[in-house]
């Protein structure tokens, strides 16, 4: 039982990643008047009709669901910007373009709850899907370059939250095994642990497995 690893403890569920994304700020335009909200997570408002204001995503969605505001999609979600990003993602084999850490969750929340507020919805949605796909492919192929590093640290510039979460178990294991192949004696894993048993029993181990 010693040396057992538990991949579950250190992994965020899809819901948890989304939960974190819901704290990202977004601009809304209320259609009603409301006193400022002095909340545990911060102070927002006051709210006046047609006066844009910043609130966390979850609050924006709650107001939207109750018909109290429109949401202004963030600037990076414009067709022009996304087209540029997609081109750049496809051009470069290694580099990832700068996008908000939570771009996947933010866009999918907006598609689900505020689709009417997004200009060029279909175009935006398909661009984001393409960007996502292009980036996932790249994550996989850039794993090969991880091997050169032969190290226990790898830089993953501009990777987003959901991407990190998806590749985490895989990259973690891959790095562990590159690391292991690079210098097997340095990897403290369960098998290596058993090799550190006292001498007397170690002798017999070999004898035992050879019979």
């Amino acid at each position, binding site marked *: 039982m010693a040396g057992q690893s538990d991949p579950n403890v250190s992994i965020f569920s899809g819901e*948890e990643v989304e*939960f974190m994304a819901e704290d990202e700020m977004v601009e809304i335009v209320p259609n009603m008047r409301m006193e400022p909200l002095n909340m545990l997570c911060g102070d927002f408002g006051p709210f006046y009709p047609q006066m844009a204001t910043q609130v966390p995503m979850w609050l924006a969605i709650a107001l939207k669901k109750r018909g109290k505001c429109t949401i202004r999609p963030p600037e990076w979600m414009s067709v022009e910007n996304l087209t540029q990003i997609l081109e750049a993602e496809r051009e470069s084999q290694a580099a990832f373009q700068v996008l908000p850490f939570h771009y996947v969750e933010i866009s999918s929340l907006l598609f689900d709850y505020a689709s009417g507020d997004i200009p060029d919805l279909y175009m935006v949605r398909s661009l984001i899907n393409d960007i996502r796909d292009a980036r996932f492919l790249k994550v996989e192929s850039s794993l090969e370059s991880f091997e050169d590093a032969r190290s226990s640290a790898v830089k993953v510039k501009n990777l987003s939250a959901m991407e990190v979460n998806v590749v985490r178990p895989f990259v973690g294991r891959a790095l562990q095994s590159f690391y292991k192949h690079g210098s097997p004696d340095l990897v403290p894993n369960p098998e290596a642990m058993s090799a550190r048993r006292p001498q*007397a029993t170690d002798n017999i181990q070999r004898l035992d497995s050879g019979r």
Partner: protein
Amino acid sequence: MMYGTKAIQLVKEIANGEKGQLTPFSSDVFSEVIAECSQHFADLRSLIRKMQEAGLDVETTKDEDHYGQLIHHLSLVRNKRCLMAYMYNRAEILRNLVWNVGSDIPEEIQEKLSHSEKEYFKKHSEALKSYMSRVVLELAVDMVPPKDPYIKVRVLDDMGEVELPSDNTANFARHSMHFLKRTDAEKYISLGKMEELTG
């Protein structure tokens, strides 16, 4: 028969089992492995006695009896590891069960447990409950991040008039739709009696 093959059955049972699912406690294999341990120990001791009677130094002599002893020792240790891994992993599943179903074990799981495991389950769920009362906080709710405090649900199983934790009552007729507090609905959703409607 080769040493240790019985014990490995126990480990395989854990390894091949569905994650988080308990199989019936293998009491027969378990006692056979325990008996094997006693046999190894008896054999080991008789080899030591044999060496002592022959006037050999048990610590330094490296004859066949010495290696015989080591084989018994290693087989015993291996059996022990398997027995422990078996119990330890099952105990872990039991602890996760406390989180998921609370202190009442469903009948079909109850049947799969050894006497000591039933005892352990009870003890551990008491410990967890007692921790919660010490921190004055129920921890078995809010298992997933909240969305809206109110959710739309559809009733899948006719339940009739039901009293909700928030002191309200509601009529949960089959296929009826409700706008409920999430905390009120959670239990029914996890039991499969309701489904959340999104969109």
